[in-house]
């Protein structure tokens, strides 16, 4: 019987041993899981602190710059009291931000963006165009200052007489006047081009027979209701600094049509109001389809 009980004890002992070792491995697992979790906490904490620091920096910068909300709310002196270690850096950042905004404002208010080129020996101007509150294409003009003021490169289309305009203004003394004139030509061109685009979009019943690159000539084909008589309308824009035509001419097989009082009124309208809007009015009064 001793043999049996010994076996029993031994097997019991080995059972306990097994239990102990499996518990032991579980205990071993816990430290590595804990290590893993601690590492994760550290990583997340640093990520959180990073975000907090960025947000705080933004806040500090905001305190140093006037803002729309502050101006409307307080209307008084800004609170410039920034409690931070790197206040010189923050002040520089605020000034940088202010200067960038002022330069952006110059850009928006319709001046000519200028950057210096070739170590200050040249300047590059950007001329923006706009029509009816919408900004259109921007053109660039590079000018050498030394030995004398002259145009070097540009992307202004060839049908704008740049060299003629340069000769007419004295580049040496009146650079700004020259830029103003070029801008006027470019804006008028952009306006005429935009009007043509709007005519095509808004008035499908009107056929564009002819137009030129400078958009200084526009020939449109109207259809008069009733007999569906075709009526050819030529718009001449001889003043290239303007978006309105200087002359409107009508042609029809029905010779009486252009002299009709209604059409004399419409021709007048076409010289006073941009073509796409004039056409809307003319179609509304059912003079054309």
């Amino acid at each position, binding site marked *: 019987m001793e043999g049996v009980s010994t076996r029993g004890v031994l097997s019991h002992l080995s059972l306990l041993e097994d239990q102990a070792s499996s*518990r032991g491995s579980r205990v071993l697992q816990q430290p590595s899981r804990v290590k893993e979790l601690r590492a994760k906490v550290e990583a997340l904490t640093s990520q959180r602190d990073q*975000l907090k620091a960025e947000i705080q920096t933004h806040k500090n910068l905001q305190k140093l710059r006037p803002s729309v909300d502050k101006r409307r709310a307080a209307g008084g002196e800004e609170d410039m009291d920034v409690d931070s270690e790197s206040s010189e850096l923050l002040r520089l950042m605020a000034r940088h931000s202010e200067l960038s905004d002022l330069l952006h404002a110059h850009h928006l208010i319709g001046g000519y963006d200028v950057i210096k080129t070739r170590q200050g020996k040249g300047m590059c101007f950007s001329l923006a165009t706009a029509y009816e509150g919408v900004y259109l294409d921007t053109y660039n003009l590079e000018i050498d200052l030394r030995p004398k003021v002259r145009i070097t490169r540009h992307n202004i289309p060839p049908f704008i007489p740049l060299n003629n305009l340069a000769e007419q203004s004295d580049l040496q003394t009146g650079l700004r006047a020259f830029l103003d004139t070029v801008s006027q030509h470019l804006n008028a061109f952009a306006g005429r081009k935009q009007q043509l685009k709007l005519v095509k979009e808004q008035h499908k019943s009107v056929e564009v027979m002819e137009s030129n690159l400078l958009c200084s000539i526009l020939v449109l084909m109207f259809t008069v209701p009733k007999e569906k008589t075709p009526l050819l309308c030529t718009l001449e824009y001889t003043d290239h600094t303007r978006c309105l035509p200087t002359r409107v001419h009508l042609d029809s097989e029905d010779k009486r049509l252009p002299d009709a009082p209604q059409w004399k009124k419409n021709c007048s309208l076409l010289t006073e109001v941009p073509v796409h809007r004039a056409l809307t009015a003319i179609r509304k009064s059912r003079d054309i389809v």
Partner: protein
Amino acid sequence: NEGRKMSENTEEVKLLEAQIMHLQAEIEALQQQQQVNCKDITFQFTGQMQDALAFLCGQTQDLEEMVVSRLKEEVEELEEDLKLQTRIDGISLNSCIRKTLQNRGQEVVQLLCLSGRCSELVFQVEFQLSEVKDGSRTERKISDLNLVLDSNDLQSLSSFLSRYRPAPINNGKII
């Protein structure tokens, strides 16, 4: 004793897991706030400004003097650019305040308040600017224009102003 060690570890695990969840929630909230900040144009930094921000957040190994001096150099360049631009435009701006009203990827709407001087005329102008990206071009529109001028001669400006304002203009100063 093994039993106690085990329950301590389980406790610690639970604690750590709770901490992790808490941190993740904090981070998500901060990221949302960060997103709001970043949509504001005034906080979209590049170049030396980005370096300075990185320094302030403890993200770089650069010395403070280095960061400061590089930023100072860039600020001085901007001062020069502003002087030149002021000379060319003949307009002297003394303040520009920008606020992003809306930033939806393709479309950005800002409110701008400018004040300055042109010849002898002192002015303040405020308007909304909407910029929509359309391929390589950006379409920009001005609306809600408000102009304050120290002048009684506003008639000559009324047609210009009426293009950007929904309401008709009365005589006298416009605010």
